[in-house]
């Protein structure tokens, strides 16, 4: 009798433990530069990430398990990002890490996270960040620099039919590598830029550089930089010179913070930048259904009024968590190998920012067809109109 009682208690205990584990929160690490020089996009992405977690938990979590977001502010510093990545893995025991949110930090953390075999959803656009062989569990939902560059080059060469191109980049690692990649892509198309310059991003006046580009005969200026101040100085120098040359380039040239820095609103005319079909009004002024729905759902969290920053950051943050949810559901848990398999098998996963697809050797989930060119002067409620074609 006693033995039966003990056995019964043991069964109850084990069952209890098992059911307790079944209800344990799934811990998701979130490495984000919430402060520091690259915080603007991260703060917006964080809104999307937090909202998605809240939404999933309100709907009962994933198979009954709530998501627990473990956020670490990397202060835009790669060393801090590495330290926090280790902390998330070894101390917080997270099942998956989202972030870091820029290429500089990602370059430093990806090898560290990959070494421990933790699945990683990264938000950095430098092409070299992902590698299915070296970092098999690092998946990228954001587009790559190549996709931005190819779209901008196609617009400048084939739509605007310009051939005399001035390529400008800043002297940061990101600015330099992107400007060089843009130049190489143009040369592949048989176009040698008439003017190429790498400029210190803190240079307070770019009139001389724009004048040099003009003197070189440039009929389109293509700036590649993620620095708002630098881009604003390009736009202001062009406007102050009264030079109505088209500018086609990096999305920062139409980002919401830049609009406040231009000397006159008209300076935003004739500026086009790489954007997203999901964040673009159609001919009738309508947005894709998923984008509109997310805008309305999250609007109260963004202040309630018109959205005053690039909404794609919010949508991207939202999608990273939704992608993680999809992988955990498909894997039936948080086993790292199963999560990798689930993400590799992901085809046509419809997010708000894009529809994603990965493969056994494919770690870039963002499809080329989701890239469009937008008009900088058409910003409204966080999104843009398509550039004329």
């Amino acid at each position, binding site marked *: 009798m006693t033995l039966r009682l003990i056995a019964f208690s043991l069964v109850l205990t084990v069952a209890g433990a098992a059911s307790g584990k079944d209800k344990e929160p799934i811990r998701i690490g979130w490495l984000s530069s919430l*402060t520091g020089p690259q915080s603007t996009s991260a703060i917006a992405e964080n809104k999307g990430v937090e909202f998605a977690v809240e939404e999933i938990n309100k709907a009962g979590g994933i198979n009954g398990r709530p998501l627990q977001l473990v956020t670490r502010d990397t202060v835009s510093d790669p060393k801090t990002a590495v330290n926090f990545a280790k902390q998330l893995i070894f101390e917080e025991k997270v099942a998956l890490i989202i972030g870091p949110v820029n290429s500089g930090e990602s370059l430093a953390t990806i090898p560290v996270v990959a070494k421990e075999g933790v699945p990683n959803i990264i938000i950095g656009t430098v092409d070299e960040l992902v590698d299915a062989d070296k970092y098999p569990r690092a998946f990228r939902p954001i587009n790559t620099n190549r996709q931005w560059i190819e779209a901008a080059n196609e617009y400048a060469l084939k739509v605007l039919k310009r051939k005399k191109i001035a390529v400008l980049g800043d*002297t940061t690692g990101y600015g330099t590598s992107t400007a060089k990649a843009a130049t190489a892509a143009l040369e592949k198309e048989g176009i040698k830029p008439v003017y190429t310059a790498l400029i210190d991003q803190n240079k307070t006046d770019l009139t001389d550089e724009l004048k040099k580009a003009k003197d070189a005969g440039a009929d389109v200026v293509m700036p590649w930089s993620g620095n708002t101040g630098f881009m604003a100085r390009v736009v202001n120098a062009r406007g102050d010179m009264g030079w109505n040359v088209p500018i086609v380039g990096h999305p920062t040239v139409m980002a919401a913070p830049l609009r406040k820095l231009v000397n006159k609103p008209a300076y935003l005319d004739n500026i086009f930048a790489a954007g997203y079909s999901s964040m673009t009004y159609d001919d009738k002024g309508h947005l894709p259904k998923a984008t509109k729905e997310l805008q309305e759902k999250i609007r109260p969290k963004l202040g309630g009024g018109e959205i005053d920053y690039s909404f794609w950051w919010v949508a991207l943050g939202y999608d990273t968590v939704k992608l993680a949810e999809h992988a955990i559901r498909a894997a039936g848990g948080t086993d790292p190998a199963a999560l990798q398999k689930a993400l590799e098998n992901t085809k046509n996963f419809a997010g708000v920012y894009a529809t994603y697809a990965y493969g056994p050797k494919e770690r870039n989930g963002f499809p080329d067809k989701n890239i469009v060119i937008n008009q900088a002067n058409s910003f409204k409620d966080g999104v843009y109109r398509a550039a004329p074609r």
Partner: protein
Amino acid sequence: MLTVLISGLASGALFAAAALVYNVMFSTSKVLGVQTGQTAMLGGVFGAWFIRTFHFPIPLALLGSIFVGGVFGFLTDLIAVRRVLNRSDEHLWLLSTLAFATITQQVVALLWGTEPLPFPRVVPQDFSAGLLDQKYWLPILTALALAAGIELFYRRTLYGKLFLAMSEDPFAARARGVPTDRIRALSYVISGAMGGLAGFMAGQLTFAYFAVGITLSLNGFIALAVGGLGSNTGALVGGAALGILSAGASYFIGGEYQNTVSVGLLMVVLLLKPAGLFGAQVARPV
């Protein structure tokens, strides 16, 4: 070419203003505080805030920026300099002023964000003025006015003479009854106010941006070392030379060489003339 010259002169004027701020602090304390650039940063950020948020008229906003700079200077002395100087002869002020500068920058980033914010026009003028645009001439005129003002202050006022006395020999000055702590505090207030003024006047070049201080601290120091520590003429010449050379290097060689040229200039001058172009090596009888 003229564009490079004027544009270089304008940014050089800002470096010269930072060098003048260093000079005033150095005269009474022999400290080259790393927070120098932050005083100008605060002038720009607060100036833009006063105008855009509170709709202050420009002169009032300018006075506000000068006041904020002065308070920041006073706090620098109080928190990062006075106690360090009293307790140690070592150059620990380098760390304390660096810490103070970093804290200030972080606080500004947290309160105003990390994106640059627009700085309004100081005098009514269209944007099509080319090289006559105020964004070039305001920093240049400000640097000249600051240098002239500080020279007049040294030569024509009692307090100015006390600054010079402390600069010559702080121990002798104290022995003769000069309240050295108060004079040093006053020098920090004045230097802070100068930085606030310069930051306001250069706001259209730099935007109201939390991270501009580090660049100004570094380039202001280079301008000072090239021109000669303690010389206001040297600060102006050093700043102008640095600004024009940097702009020229960026234009003719490429932006990636801009910093190499500015630091190279410093090394060349220090090798050929260690006291700087206008600095005097003081021989002290012992």
